[in-house]
């Protein structure tokens, strides 16, 4: 029953003269555009966009949507991405005209309600982090990392210290080293030990007075809480460095432990993960950061402040690193995070982490009989299994398993990350899944490991397309439609 035209491109649907939108006639007396726009700037005609009728627009994109897996339709245990249920009530709140239809340069007296919300959000994020100074400006987690590293750089400049190094473990997200470089630092990788934690000897060997920041993801990308974290903080602080916490995995410790209490000086949140903002097919996110009182002076401008019951966007902050994003930030995402926090409260947030950790441990208890989980008897909100024995004995890879899971109606876990585990499958069920769903997932995984390797190498079998040729895509990249490219056979 699939619409066979669903994968026809907009450009192939185009017919001259068709159109969707209709616009009103011009209701003001004004000269023709040829008199208003300098000839040198004026184009000979509009750009060569496709011409389609409105019903076609709806049918085209609606059919395309059905080719996606999503949280609303499928179990999506994509480790590190916290694909939890996206609350519909938060969508309704964020779409209120008094929230959504505000201009970013509107006078402060016309947006007092929104500023009150953002101010309160700053306080709540600071409390959950144990780090009181907050910037809501960064547009994504990676942007938050970068902003925090710029804050650190400004801090050391102010102290007159020329520190050049940012350190992070080999299990860190790729954004950590990339952000360090963009903030002007040299990046140094610290090894993990056999248990998946920071190798303290390697850290000690690489720690000198050139360290600016040690970046740690805790709970780690292996889904483990590194008990050494306060000791790491102690020795890094002793060298004059700062601790940055990658908050990607905050879903495990809400109301349980606070980064500021276990040694972090700076952190970012991923509200689109932890606080359930919809991922939108790959964005938007947001990356608010929390820092110590001391580092607060360097946060980007503006921050929301309260003065005599009035909310203002404070810009007069002499030590600030300046601006990192136009306007205020990804307010729409922040409003959803605010709604999430207000509807959960302190007990609800703690229950989120308790059930996220319960679900992950339960699923791990089911999965570890099928695939080994090299690190840890227990996990936090996620765990990393490995298909390495399966590969060695049967030639079946993590990718094969991932692809075959799609046939069973499950989105695949994150595969081949972290880089420290061979044939890694990083599984994060989140708290918004049921025991029955996790049982069904484990059952499917078990059945798959019993299937013939040939069947798995060719999976998926039930999707619209089979495995794409990624090598060809990269070797001769086709990144747009042109009349010559046309449909493939």
């Amino acid at each position: 029953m699939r619409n066979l035209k669903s994968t026809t491109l907009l450009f192939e649907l185009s017919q001259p003269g068709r159109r969707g939108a209709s616009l009103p006639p011009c209701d003001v007396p004004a000269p023709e555009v040829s008199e208003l726009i300098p000839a040198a700037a004026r184009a000979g005609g509009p750009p060569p966009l496709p011409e389609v009728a409105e019903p076609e627009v709806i049918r085209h994109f609606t059919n395309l949507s059905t080719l996606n897996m999503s949280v609303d339709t499928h179990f999506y245990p994509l480790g590190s991405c916290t694909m939890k249920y996206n609350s519909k009530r938060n969508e309704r709140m964020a779409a209120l005209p008094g929230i959504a239809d505000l201009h970013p340069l509107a006078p402060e007296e016309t947006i007092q309600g929104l500023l009150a919300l953002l101010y309160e959000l700053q306080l709540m994020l600071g409390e959950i982090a144990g780090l009181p100074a907050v910037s809501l400006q960064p547009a994504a987690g990676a942007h938050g990392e970068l902003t925090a590293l710029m804050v650190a750089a400004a801090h050391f400049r102010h102290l007159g210290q020329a520190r050049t190094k940012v350190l992070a473990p080999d299990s860190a997200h790729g954004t950590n080293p990339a952000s360090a470089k963009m903030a002007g630092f040299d990046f140094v990788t610290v090894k993990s030990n056999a248990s998946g934690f920071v190798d303290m000897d390697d850290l000690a060997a690489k720690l000198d007075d050139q360290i600016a920041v040690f970046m740690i993801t805790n709970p780690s990308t292996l889904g483990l809480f590194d008990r050494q974290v306060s000791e790491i903080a102690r020795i890094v602080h002793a060298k004059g460095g700062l601790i940055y916490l990658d908050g990607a995995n905050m879903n495990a410790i809400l109301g349980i432990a606070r980064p500021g209490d276990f040694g972090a000086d700076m952190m970012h949140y991923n509200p689109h993960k932890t606080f359930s903002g919809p991922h939108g097919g790959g964005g938007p996110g947001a990356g608010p950061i929390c820092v110590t009182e001391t580092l607060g002076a360097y946060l980007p401008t503006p921050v929301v402040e309260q003065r005599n019951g009035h909310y203002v966007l404070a810009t007069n902050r002499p030590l600030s690193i300046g601006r990192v994003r136009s306007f205020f930030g990804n307010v729409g995402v922040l409003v959803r995070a605010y709604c999430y926090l207000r509807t959960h409260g302190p007990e609800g947030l703690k229950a989120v982490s308790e059930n996220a950790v319960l679900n992950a441990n339960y699923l791990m208890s089911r999965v570890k009989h099928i695939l080994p989980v090299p690190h840890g008897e227990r996990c936090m909100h996620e765990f990393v299994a490995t298909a390495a024995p399966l590969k060695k004995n049967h030639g079946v890879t993590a990718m094969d398993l991932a692809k075959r899971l799609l046939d069973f109606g499950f989105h695949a876990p994150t595969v081949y990350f972290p880089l420290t585990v061979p044939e890694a499958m990083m599984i994060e069920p989140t708290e918004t899944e049921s025991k029955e769903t996790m049982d069904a997932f484990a059952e499917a995984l078990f059945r798959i490991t019993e299937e013939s390797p040939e069947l798995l190498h060719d999976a998926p079998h039930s999707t619209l397309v089979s495995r794409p040729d990624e090598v060809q895509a990269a070797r001769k990249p086709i990144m747009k439609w042109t009349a010559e490219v046309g449909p493939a056979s």
Partner: protein
Amino acid sequence: MPYFYNTPADQQAMLAAIGVSSIDELFAQVPAELRLGRPLDLPPALSELELAQHLGRLAAQNAHIGEKVCFLGGGAYDHFVPAVVDCVAGRGEFYTSYTPYQPEVAQGNLQVMFEYQTLICQLTGLDVSNASLYDGGSAAVEAVLLAMSVTGRQAKVVTLGSVHPQYREILETYFACLGAKLVTVPTPRGAADLAEVAAVVDGETACILVQHPNFFGCYEDVSALAKIAHDAGALLVQSFDPISLGLLKRPGDLGADVAVAEGQSLGTPLLYGGPYLGIMACREQFVRRMPGRIAGQTVDRRGRRCWVLTLQTREQHIRREKATSNICTNQGLFALRAAIYLAEMGPQGLAETAELCVRKAHYARERLTVGSRLSAAFDQPTFKEFVIRDSQGQVEELLAQGLDAGYLAGIPLGQWYPELADCFLVAVTEKRTKAEIDGLAEILAAKRESTAPRPHARLAKTMV
């Protein structure tokens, strides 16, 4: 309350299967001395109904653009959003999916990315587009970093005073860490003086960053600036207004090497500044230095056309500190909105939208400057925005009077340009009606004659 399924019975069954007696036992790896040991100091949980009431109260304290007629622009615009955009973009299969790591179950998103990239290439006249960046400001910064990377010139970038001041502020923030210098050529006449630009562009310059139409709504001579840049071995980066390309020559046709834009105008509401859409397109030879995700066409094992993320060896998850950027997301939802918007508008719709903007803005500029007190700050043609100077220098009072009468009348410019402290920026989109423009003119005209409060503004106007 949390959205979970687990009943106490479920929890007991799961704990038994794990082999522990309590949830607390699962947290044993978190040392006791690092635990919080008290409830978070947060307000108690609200039900959905209470949340709606609370947000309703907060929202009521804000003056949205349905209540105040919006003449604010400066990089975020009150353009019309057709219903089809919300209808399609709100579908859960788009809305609650994520990065297409498994292309077989993300062909919808990937095809949209590919279509978006094609639409942006058609719009800009450039060879390749990425699948989007955070917003217009970060796109401008990333374009400058790309230019520094491809030219190998890490020390100097030239820009103009007429480029969005916040974009320049972001660049200054990044450059403070990278040790590069941003040379800003002032634009006292509203647009670049070519000789002044040429005088500072040299063999050390990575690029010229220009905005056209610029922050003041004026046109820049992008072709001439591109020549200045290219003669010095530098690139030309143009920040553009997507709506303007219904009528204006495309960045690629003007000689731009990289084009960036704030994509909010293409189907996204104002949202108090975000999330928005960073558009970036460039010439083919720079694609391997481009930041952000890119969708590419390929075939599956049965030879069928399909789409994947491609050229990922540029990206942080593979290259780590050697990546082109730390960016690991796009703005998928807003790229989708832009694609739907452009499909719905088509070439004619975009041209008509641009035409309505430029004609209405022209009318508004004429109407506002009829009397002697207000004048156009720059003697230049403008697109959908223009700068008004108050000869009495009372911008704050003037805008406050507009607000009282129901108009978000303009953006005061003194915050970024001390020499324009007596000026404000007015934007006019296709949504503004003649009645609204006339109304704004009347209010500001009532102020024109006297600064004393007048109870009967309408009467005052008839007496002018």
